[in-house]
């Protein structure tokens, strides 16, 4: 400590000799310009109409939907993460999977709470797993990515519902199987495009497998959904 002190003293010791001569006038303006504009900017989102706020959030959510449907290496999903999109998708999926009738004799139809819990706790477990494996992504960013990548499966659910209106024979089953398989692999591919980058390269398979299992379970719930007659 003492040696470092002495070596640094010569660096700054000379500054104590500087003196300002009286010939050079020193003048200036010390007042700090009060920028009331900055204060207004911080609170301006409180004064705007509600429609603007909602539309701005909806636009952000819609932009992320586009990023999911065409997964390319962009960091928009990771940078401005939000959980509105996953909530909307999760509620939509759970409502559609519930079906119309409140018949208590119906077998094995997933309840609203079941779907909700599966999606959110599954996402939490996958996030914990990827963090334990040494991932660099944060908790909520990972939740955001996994939630947004349910979008293809929600689209498949809508398609399945439409197909089931036509009938529930073998042809409709094959069509639904193809649609659900395609959307489930799309979901897995889209989420690994965002998640796998944050892992060390030789461990990507360890992170991809739980994601695959997660979307497989959701896809299975969609495929075995049959509306009550």
């Amino acid at each position, binding site marked *: 400590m003492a040696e470092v002190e002495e070596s640094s003293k010569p660096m*700054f010791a000379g*500054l104590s000799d500087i003196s300002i001569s009286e010939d050079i006038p020193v003048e200036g303006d010390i007042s700090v310009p009060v920028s009331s504009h900055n204060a207004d900017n911080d609170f301006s989102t409180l004064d705007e109409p509600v429609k603007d706020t909602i539309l701005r959030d909806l636009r952000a959510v819609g932009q992320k939907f586009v990023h999911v449907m065409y997964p390319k290496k962009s960091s928009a999903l990771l940078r401005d993460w939000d959980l509105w999109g996953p909530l909307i998708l999760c509620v939509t999926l759970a409502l559609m999977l519930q079906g119309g009738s409140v018949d208590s004799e119906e077998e*094995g139809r997933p*309840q609203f709470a079941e779907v909700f819990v599966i999606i959110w706790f599954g996402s939490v477990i996958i996030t914990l797993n990827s963090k334990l494996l040494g991932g660099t992504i944060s908790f909520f960013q990972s939740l955001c990515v996994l939630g947004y990548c349910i979008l293809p499966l929600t689209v498949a659910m809508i398609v399945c519902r439409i197909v089931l209106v036509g009938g529930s024979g073998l042809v409709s089953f094959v069509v639904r199987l193809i649609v659900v398989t395609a959307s489930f692999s799309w979901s897995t591919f889209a989420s690994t495009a965002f998640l796998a980058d944050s892992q060390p390269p030789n461990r990507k398979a360890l992170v991809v497998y739980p994601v695959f299992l997660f979307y497989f379970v959701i896809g299975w719930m969609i495929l075995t959904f049959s509306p009550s007659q």
Partner: protein
Amino acid sequence: LYSRTCLCKTMSASQGSTNTNTEPWSSFDNNIIQGRGSAVIDMENMDDTSGSSFEDMGEMHQRMKEEEEVTAEAAATEEDNGEYGDFLGMKGLKGQLGRQVADEVWQAGKRQASKAFNLYANIDILRPYFDVEPIQVRNRLIESLIPVRIINFPQKVAGELYGPMMLVFTMVAILLHGMKTSGTVIREGTLMGTAIGTCFGYWLGVSSFIYFLSYLCNAQITMLQMLSLLGYGLFGHCMVLFITYNVHFHSLFYFLWLVIGGLSTLRMVAVLISRTVGQTPRLILCGTLAALHMLFLLYLHFAYHKMVEGILDTLEGPNIPPIQRVARDVPVVASAVVNATIKSIAAVVQSQ
């Protein structure tokens, strides 16, 4: 408390060493010394927890955070003290004092909460158990079906949790599939809850029970190793269930139950035998484990099985999948009697 006194000591030491400097630059020197002091704090950027125990890391983090908070607090209270001196009159006194006290209470509470959180919810505790490569996982999965030959010295058991956890979740998914296709009705509860409860309950419960028995029988195995061993033993179960939930042949199931279930049980039993001394302890431990493991597979198959195959054969003619058994030719009356008895038995079983 000790960190506060430490800091005071360093500050007074620096002040003592710089009293030879001229007045305007003494604070500048303090900053230099404090800046040098921050070289010690750089260690928190070293994110390597593989070697150190989690308690040391937790303590180090805690100490650094406390130091930072103490310096922030010291700076804040210095400013407040300066303003406090300027305010005259009782109203100003109470305002400042109240705010200061509230601030201190808030800081203390926050520190307590963050200390508790860092100690208990520290995910770094589990990090070493997830440090695996995909090829290691694959090798261990295959090894779980190969019984070891050498039982006179302790066999190595890998202590990792990634493989067992993924296998338990896979089994949950397979069970869900089985429950759906067999049309199981769960009255009190949900399908998902039952599947998760069964799989995790087996893994954690039987591991703890066998660990307790191994403590009684003086076997050399830790809880982590037992969890890992049983978890990998579920690989055989997953395979058998996956095949037999889709291909409903009883004889096929019994064959797979004996062969694959038997192989994975034999592996677990051999590892336990190699770590236990004495005939009776070995018998108790391995007998229990073998019985529980094999019976669990039997239970999983039959609990979610199509119980009423007889009815399906005779009633739902056009929908018979090609692999199911074909009904034998029996007279109409006899078949009606058989169907009635099967229906009543099914009703009795389902009402339980």
